């Protein structure tokens, strides 16, 4: 393979693999012998030495891995530690309210109520420490049960779960009647 192209291929492989790749495997892909392959990696590696490059190739016992240069560490920490702005979207809030009032509850039950998948919202709420896993339901598939956390109680100024306002069956009946009236109206027209 053409040298420049071989460099590109090795760069692409080391990038996408992330982990270390043996020299012989790289040689197979670029269809060169190991010696030539090592020379090509050396050339590629030398180019990475330039000051405008943030990555490098390290050799580990005949295998190669792409990594960031040591002096980049402080910047990586900086970006990882930058505070992220969290916002509770409507979806996340709805999911939270369902979990608060119906806990312990499974994903499936939440999805039934909302009519759409809730994976993203549930994960977000766990990340924010507003809900947590409570255990598993003793049912086929043993689905996870979710409930609110202490952080939730703290943030919403609730002393305990008993403090949550109840949605009683009377209210449910009201909703049902309203719905029926609306249907009746439509039929009468």
């Amino acid at each position, binding site marked *: 393979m053409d040298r420049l192209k071989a460099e590109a291929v090795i760069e692409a492989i080391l990038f996408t693999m992330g982990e270390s790749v043996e020299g012989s495997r790289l040689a197979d892909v670029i269809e060169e012998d190991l010696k030539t392959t090592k020379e090509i990696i050396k050339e590629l590696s030398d180019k990475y030495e330039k000051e405008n490059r943030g990555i490098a190739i390290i050799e580990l016992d005949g295998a190669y891995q792409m990594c960031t240069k040591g002096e980049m560490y402080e910047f990586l*920490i900086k970006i990882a530690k930058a505070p992220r702005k969290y916002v509770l979207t409507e979806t996340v809030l709805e999911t939270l309210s369902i979990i608060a009032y119906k806990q312990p509850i499974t994903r499936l039950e939440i999805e039934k109520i909302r009519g759409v998948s809730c994976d993203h919202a549930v994960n977000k709420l766990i990340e924010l420490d507003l809900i947590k896993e409570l255990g598993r339901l003793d049912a086929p598939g043993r689905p996870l049960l979710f409930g609110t956390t202490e952080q939730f109680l703290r943030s919403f100024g609730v002393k305990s779960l008993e*403090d949550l306002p109840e949605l009683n069956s009377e209210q449910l009946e009201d*909703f049902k009647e309203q719905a029926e009236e609306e249907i009746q109206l439509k039929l009468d027209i």
Partner: protein
Amino acid sequence: MAIPVKLEVFEGPLDLLLHLIDKNKIDIYDIPIVVITEQYLDYIKNMKTDDMNIMSEFLVMAATLLDIKCRMLLPKEVNEEGEEEDPRSELVQKLLEYKIYKYMSFELKDRLLDSEKLLFKRATLPKEVENYRHPVDYDELIQDLNLSKLHEIFKSIVKKQEDKIDPIRSKFGKLEKDEVSMEQKMSYVEQYISKNGRFSFRALLEKQCGKMEVIVTFLVILELMKVGRIHIQQDDIFEDIIITTA
């Protein structure tokens, strides 16, 4: 012997219509409704689908085509600007819009095939960086949200869920055959005719109890009229209808 024809699968009634328009090489702006309706009905007659949902969607379009066919026969409707309205125009607009998105979906598919060749990589953050979580500022996150607002949200979700349930159909449990059969009503009405000779439609209906009975009786009258067993006469609109044996 009829050769079994492998029917193409269509993505819906509009897809089927576009196929027919294409096959017949006709102008989408000037659809010969009679021809298309016939072919459309032929197609769904041959459709072997057990899925009632899919079938019903095709039937809705069939009804729309028949409706357009009827309206084409009637004097042209005139809109507010006094222009004649083509009963087909709404369907044409729908077909064009659908055709555009169908076309775009092929364009997108090409892009998907190109982009599938790009490979990414997982994050390779040092452990301590990866595990770092910036503390969440709950005051900022929760803002003016409080328990009663959360409760409002929950109530509105529950209400929406209730709205979705059709209180009438949800009580059906399962669908059963109607207790009023066409055959039974037919023989009843025939007896009634032979006994009365000439009678008022209203009087006949008054003897029926329940909505289903009224509907089936009405259908029986229509059928008898079609086959020429009875004559009906109505002197003025909303007047009683007088039925006589033919």
